[in-house]
């Protein structure tokens, strides 16, 4: 049985690693910086081991947590035992957090190993200044630590704390190459857009707190997750609905769901391992995790559940369509992530958090692998633009093979990992009885949305594979016109060869997982130590039955997408340039991501806010508010001059003044008498 200190150490080890790197290694440039990568990986390996131990400890639990009591963090007004305000921190170890911890530490560790090779160039850039290499590993460690803190948080406020820290370190990682304007802008965008979601999170916290009486009467704390979960079915509807909606807003922001999905494609400006980590198990998964974390709260309100499911469904399709027309390999993957996260929300929305987590679990591996493959490709061709790739399988066989595997997994092709979880999601959605009380047609709608998205997923992932690895090589970075390159890439050249072992090795590990994670860990039957439908089992929920026709249908759709992709991009059966005008228009809409960025950035931020509200406020402040102050000052300064006009210098005028004074005084008294 794991003890509490060890659980804390899951968060603490990466944190410590980061601190050692930033404070111990980074300042001493010459000899020690090389160690930073190993320190980061070592710390993560320790955390991974501890996570496995933790997972092992909760294996027998079904939805219950290991009872570590929380500790006092902030108190206001005396003794908490007498009802004073208190914020606690603690670790909440249950199957959900244990699985997440394992995934996070594992993926992070692999990504860091990969980074040893990938980020090598950061080490010898800038003429002997090796500042960026250790900075990178420090950020990675901190980022993972923040994510782990979020995962293990006992208290919603604590969740929020780490939630924000995840945002911070994603900001720093996305903007790692801060000298690139696009990276700096993307980092800022990621932070601000997610913060809009966090605003909802914060409101939810306030809302919960303002209804603390409902908890207090039960002797519970409105912020502590176990209390919330156990009290959720008994709480008043208004409390539950708004609190869940607020939390969901936070999840939407972090998980880049519609309508806060715009930050994620831009976030590809970060180093590729970062994208991989962010997209696989950490930041974007946080939203899904949060909803799963307080799932009883969501479950208590059917309308919120519908919102969740619909958001997921819409996002799954929307993002998939965006991916269809994108030529940047990482952005295709980014849209894919958004789309897959939509699946997870569908699962949550139809009441199957275990399934959602299962998909998250699988997705972590194959999506991570896809990104690492993209990084590997970039390592060779130095660009992410698929228009300049092609034929790479010639000198990157391993990368090619792994991409195929992960692509199939993503497409949900039997028996790869993705198939199992996607199928369970579809099944779970189908399983909702639309005629039962408290449900609606939403589950049906999202089922069909998910199915459509599945087809598109298969199509775009194979479009990606074909454009990258098949056909003629189109020149890589050397073919990119200079004015399209970012300055950093100005002098890079194509390097034809497989990536180094440090990169390939972690990809291989992930490749294995991308194949087996679905079948091995959530098998339809009991599989050695793993029970059948292990995830659902852990969550103590009904496991959806595998419905044969759904499995067949989804397979058909997926294969259809693959075939279509091969037909169009591989066999060139359709000449895209000779498509009708409407097709090009549609293409542009997709390329512009339905003009969402235009709407947000140009119309809302630049026009309505910056040139509207902000300008008006500034004008108001300078001209009206300060203007009034200055006017009063001006009057004061000049009133003297006006009054001084009476001071003519003529002594007799002064005498008149005296007389007038006498008369006025007399008059005043005569009036009074």
């Amino acid at each position, binding site marked *: 049985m794991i003890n509490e200190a060890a659980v804390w150490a899951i968060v603490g080890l990466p944190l410590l690693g980061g601190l050692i790197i930033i404070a111990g290694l980074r300042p001493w440039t010459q000899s020690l910086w090389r160690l930073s990568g190993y320190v980061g990986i070592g710390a993560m390996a320790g955390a991974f081991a501890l996570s496995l131990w933790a997972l092992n400890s909760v294996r027998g639990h079904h939805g219950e947590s290991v009872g570590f009591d929380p500790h*006092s*963090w*902030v*108190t*206001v*007004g*005396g*003794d908490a035992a*007498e*009802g*004073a*305000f208190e914020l606690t921190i603690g670790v909440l170890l249950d199957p959900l957090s244990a699985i997440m911890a394992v995934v996070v530490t594992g993926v992070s560790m692999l990504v860091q190993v990969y980074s040893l090779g990938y980020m090598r160039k950061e080490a010898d850039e800038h003429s002997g200044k090796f*500042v960026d290499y250790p900075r990178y590993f420090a950020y990675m460690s901190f980022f993972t630590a923040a994510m782990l803190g979020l995962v293990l948080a006992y208290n919603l*406020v604590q969740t*929020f*704390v*780490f939630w*924000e*820290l995840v945002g*911070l370190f994603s*900001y720093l990682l996305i*903007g790692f190459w*801060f*000298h*690139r*304007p696009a*990276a*700096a*802008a993307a*980092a*800022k965008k990621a*932070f*601000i857009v997610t*913060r*809009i979601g*966090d*605003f909802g999170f*914060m*409101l939810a*916290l*306030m*809302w919960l*707190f*303002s209804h*603390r009486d409902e908890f207090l009467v039960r002797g519970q704390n409105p912020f502590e997750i176990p209390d919330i979960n156990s009290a959720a079915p008994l709480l008043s509807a208004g409390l539950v609905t708004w609190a869940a909606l607020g939390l969901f807003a936070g999840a939407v922001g972090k998980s880049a769901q519609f309508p806060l999905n715009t930050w994620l494609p831009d976030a590809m400006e970060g180093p590729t391992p970062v994208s991989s980590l962010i997209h696989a198990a950490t930041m974007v998964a946080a939203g899904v995790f949060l909803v799963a974390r307080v799932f009883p709260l969501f479950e208590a309100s059917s309308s919120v559940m519908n919102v969740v499911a619909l958001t997921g469904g819409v996002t799954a399709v929307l993002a998939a369509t965006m991916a269809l027309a994108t030529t940047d390999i990482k952005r295709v993957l980014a849209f894919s992530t958004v789309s897959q996260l939509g699946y997870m929300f569908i699962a949550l929305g139809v009441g199957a958090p275990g399934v959602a987590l299962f998909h998250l679990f699988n997705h972590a591996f194959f999506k991570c692998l896809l990104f690492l493959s993209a990084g590997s490709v970039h390592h060779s061709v130095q660009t992410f633009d698929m228009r300049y790739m092609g034929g790479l399988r010639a000198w990157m066989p391993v990368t090619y093979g792994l991409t195929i595997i992960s692509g199939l997994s993503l497409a949900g092709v039997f028996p790869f990992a993705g198939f199992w979880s996607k199928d369970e999601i579809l099944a779970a959605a189908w399983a909702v009885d639309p005629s039962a009380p408290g449900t609606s047609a939403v589950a049906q709608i999202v089922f069909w949305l998910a199915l459509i998205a599945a087809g598109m997923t298969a199509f775009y992932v194979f479009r990606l594979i074909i454009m990258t690895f098949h056909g003629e090589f189109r020149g890589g970075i050397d073919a990119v016109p200079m004015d399209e390159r970012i*300055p950093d890439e100005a002098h890079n050249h194509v390097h034809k060869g497989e990536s180094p072992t440090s990169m390939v090795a972690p990809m291989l590990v992930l490749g294995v997982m991308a194949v087996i994670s679905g079948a091995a860990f959530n098998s339809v039957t009991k599989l050695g130590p793993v029970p059948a439908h292990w995830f659902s089992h852990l969550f103590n929920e009904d496991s959806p039955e595998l419905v044969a026709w759904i499995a067949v249908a989804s397979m058909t759709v997926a294969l259809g997408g693959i075939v279509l992709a091969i037909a169009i991009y591989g066999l060139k059966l359709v000449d895209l340039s000779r498509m009708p005008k409407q097709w090009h228009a549609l293409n542009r809409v997709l390329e512009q991501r339905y003009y969402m960025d235009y709407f947000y950035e140009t119309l809302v931020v630049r026009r309505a*806010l*910056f040139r509207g*509200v*902000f*300008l008006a*406020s*500034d004008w108001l*402040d300078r001209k009206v*508010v*300060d203007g009034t*102050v200055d006017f009063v*000052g001006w009057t004061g300064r000049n009133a003297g001059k006006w009054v001084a006009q009476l001071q003519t210098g003529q002594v007799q005028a002064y005498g008149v003044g005296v007389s007038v004074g006498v008369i006025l005084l007399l008059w005043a008294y005569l009036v009074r008498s």
Partner: protein
Amino acid sequence: MLLSTIVFLPIVAAVLVLALGRTQQMARLIALIAVVGELALTLMAFAAYDTDAGGYQFVERFDWISAFDIQYLLAVDGLSVPMVLLNGILGLAAVLVSWNVKERPNQYYMWLLVLQAAVMGVFVSMDLILFFVFWELELVPMFFLISLWGTGRREYSAMKFLIYTFLGSAFMLTAMLTLYFSLPDGERTFDIMALMGRDMSGLLVPTGLVFAGFLIAFAVKLPMFPLHTWLPDAHTDAPTAVSVMLAGVLLKMGGYGLLRINAGLFPEQMTDFASTLAVIAVVSVLYGAFIVMRQTDLKRMVAYSSVSHMGFVTLGIASVAGGGSALSSVGLNGAAMQLFTHGTITGLLFVVVGLIYERAHTRHIPDLGGLAKQMPLIAVGFMIAGLASLGLPTTSGFVAELLIFLGTFQVFGLATALAAFGVVLAAGYILWTAQRTLFGPRVARWDGLTDARPVDVAAMLVLIIPIFVVGLYPKVLTDVFAVGIDPIMAGFGLAGFGG
């Protein structure tokens, strides 16, 4: 004698600096010793303050002008002892950040020390008139510091600051005297401790007017919309250290006054006025944030962000509306926390901006860019300050804002929600500024610029440490503040939180 020592040590040092500080080195050395000693003393006071015993401690009471029962009465309670510490911290930062002042250094440090002493006096005075004396005394060094060592339209700004504050305090003085003479003969006193909890009805004028007199003074100082326009000007044209002190402690005097006097002495009026206060707070928060977005001068930007952030203080205080509930205690504590945290955070922001300005000789944001390459340490300082300013958890800013929101939401749901949106806006302007100043391609024009020297790093660290200490372990402050807030809560008929 601890408090007297704390108040008068800088004054003695000021005299010494003026007399002995013939050279820059000598002057700054004396000043440094003084502020380090001052920080040590304030830390000692903070540590020695017994939170279990609570109440007013280190009381020093002497008759000053016995004809009007005006006393030299110093004491600290849980509310003021952190403010004293804050002043000690910022005093050190201010001296460190003005390490390079070459023009008449002895006079400069003299005024800086006098300023610190005056602010210290405000925080430890428990006699209204003594409070007022220190309140006014602070104007003189500020005026000279801004107008002699400032930049830009410094004379205008110094005068605006002076007149504006003076105007506000004019109302405060009248209110104090009215209060005094309203009490029956024999019970007349300026002793804040004795006035706490007294029935404030039946004054010479409607009690609301007395309340308003204090409120105006504190609203100007805080500053509260629409009385804030002196702040951007004063900040912009003040030398760095003065901006640090201004943002760090002078504004806090307003919030401190609101808590100590408006909320402490006039709970009934505060109860009635809180709704208006909440509206003002929301306007301050959002309007301030809107304006920040349009600023192109780094200091003006930080100044308006102060307006926005001090709106949170107002909001927290407004949580006592309608007599408050037990949760108002959280709001008031949050307001007090915000005073402290904003002091360190905005102080740090001004330190960083000052360092940039000292090197680049411009604060015009469009001229800057890519500075993280040339001055990474300063960039780190900027980011820490900025992130703390936008309320990132683990920094002190988060705790304060969280407490304010939690405390106020149950009274003013909409207002608090709107104000909380200010946090999103804060992320917007802070990160946008960081992007335009620190990030982006390196600008060749700034290639010659050096990074922070050890003394600059020290100045930043002095402020960074409390930001993180409080952010990670807020109890260090909340436990103290709570002791100070409880008596105020009692004035609202609420026995702390548990009731």
